[in-house]
């Protein structure tokens, strides 16, 4: 058996099954702690690589992995019970029955809802969703979330304690209990999408696979009748963004801003789909996702940057500010002010934001100030801000983009 095909197969299975296997093994063997369960699952994948290279990939590859895990876990328990003489045969029997592949088909959604546990912070919810639902490895999570591997590890250790203590994976609420968690699930999905869409450190600016996962998860919510108006608006919002994926980079692989994107490359199929779900989302309550989807809709509606309905966009941002007032939204609001002709309000807002120590170090604030001062033909100010922004981002593509902007201003 070729080494590559075995590795690829294992890699694929890891992506699709790691979280499920951990969750179901933890469920079947409640007295083994979660970290150890993960080790056992990890170990089964390592064994698969060695075994399959010699003996070929078995027909039921996931089944093979499950069997290895189960036997490993059973041995551990037997070992333990020999030492403590506590666990009886009864426990072994239940464990064996509970742990099989067949009951796990819908496990991904269950896990998603489990990860949306209201006692976990949004960041932790995202981290464990990436780990157990999307099955990213710690290194990948660290990269995507711009955290250190150590930081992710620390967070996972705490989360594992909590998951174990409160049986978070084991006590997934019943169908009626799922609804109250829906809005948290939306947020987690949105965060995953954002992490895929926005900057991650290093070269790959858009982790399209994460965005796809977020879209697929939302689609499965819709498919299993587990949705409300917010699900539609969230789906619509993400589809609008996804429609612009390809045009965010030019043929040389450089970042292109909204103003200079080739709008003919925007996916009209995705935009149509997004419009459809935006209509579906109509309801009396207006969520953050609704407003953001409307803004994305207006961007996609315009034939060019100049024809964009900036006045409506500005109004939508000010609506967003009512319930979601924070400096990040204010930044977007200020940009909409500028292009809708309210330059004074724009610079006033931006200069206010500059007073905040956190925001002063935010490259997007400085990049915005740089760009808008350049539009106002104030080259010196523009360059000062762009240089600040340059030093505040680590993403190679963004640094290139900022550097190019500086060069253009210098050339006049």
């Amino acid at each position, binding site marked *: 058996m070729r080494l590559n095909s075995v590795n690829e197969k294992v890699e694929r299975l890891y992506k699709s099954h790691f979280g499920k296997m951990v969750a179901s093994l933890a469920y079947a063997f409640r007295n083994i702690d979660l970290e150890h369960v993960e080790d056992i699952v990890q170990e089964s994948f390592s064994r698969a690589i060695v075994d399959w290279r010699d003996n070929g990939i078995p027909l039921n590859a996931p089944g093979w992995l499950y069997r290895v895990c189960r036997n490993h876990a059973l041995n551990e328990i037997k070992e333990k019970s020999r030492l403590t003489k506590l666990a009886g045969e009864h426990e072994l029997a239940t464990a064996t029955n509970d742990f099989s592949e067949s009951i796990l088909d819908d496990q991904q959604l269950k896990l998603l809802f489990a990860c949306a546990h209201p006692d976990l912070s949004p*960041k932790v919810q995202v981290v464990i969703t990436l780990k157990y639902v999307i099955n990213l490895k710690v290194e990948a999570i660290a990269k995507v*979330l711009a955290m250190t591997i150590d930081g992710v590890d620390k967070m996972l250790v705490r989360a594992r304690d909590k998951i174990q203590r409160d049986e978070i994976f084991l006590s997934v609420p019943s169908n009626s209990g799922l609804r109250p968690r829906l809005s948290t699930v939306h947020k987690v999905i949105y965060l995953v999408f954002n992490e895929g869409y926005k900057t991650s450190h290093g070269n790959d600016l858009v982790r399209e696979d994460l965005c796809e996962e977020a879209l697929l998860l939302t689609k499965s919510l819709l498919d299993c009748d587990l949705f409300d108006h917010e699900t539609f608006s969230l789906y619509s919002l993400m589809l609008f963004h996804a429609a612009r994926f390809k045009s965010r980079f030019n043929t040389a692989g450089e970042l292109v801003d909204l103003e200079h994107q080739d709008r003919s490359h925007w996916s009209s199929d995705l935009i149509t789909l997004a419009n459809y779900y935006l209509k579906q989302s109509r309801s009396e309550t207006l969520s953050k996702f609704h407003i953001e989807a409307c803004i994305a809709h207006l961007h996609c509606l315009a034939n060019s940057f100049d024809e964009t309905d900036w006045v409506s966009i500005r109004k939508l941002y000010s609506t967003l500010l009512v319930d979601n007032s924070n400096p990040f939204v204010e930044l977007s609001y200020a940009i909409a002010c500028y292009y809708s002709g309210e330059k004074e309000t724009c610079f006033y807002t931006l200069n206010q934001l500059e007073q905040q120590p956190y925001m002063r170090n935010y490259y997007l604030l400085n990049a915005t100030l740089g760009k808008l001062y350049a539009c106002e033909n104030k080259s010196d100010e523009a360059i000062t801000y762009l240089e600040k922004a340059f030093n505040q981002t680590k993403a190679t593509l963004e640094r290139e983009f900022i550097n190019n902007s500086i060069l253009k201003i210098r050339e006049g």
Partner: protein
Amino acid sequence: MEKFLLIVREDLKRIGQFTAEERFARSPDMLPWLKTLNDSGQYIMGQPLFVSGKYVTQDEVQSDGPFIEAKEGISGFDLIWAENIEQAVSIAQSCPMVMAGFAVREVRQLVKMD
């Protein structure tokens, strides 16, 4: 959703030795944490505080007050939305300053006054 104040407490004597710029250059990068809170719609506002302030009682205004050199003096705060105290605690735990052992956070729920 309830409002919570996440108070930053750190060694004021230590940070008092630095200029504002040095102080923030030494602190871990807070933006990714704030960004996550913003994206989940939970971030309201936050601000670091100057080390020195005034201390006011009925009788007098002291220039510095008794906390100026406190080991765990208040050096900043963040106001956030959270489902419950557990989630607020969990958010505080994931704060980069806390994770790096740089500062501690006190988590307090705001009383609704309507």
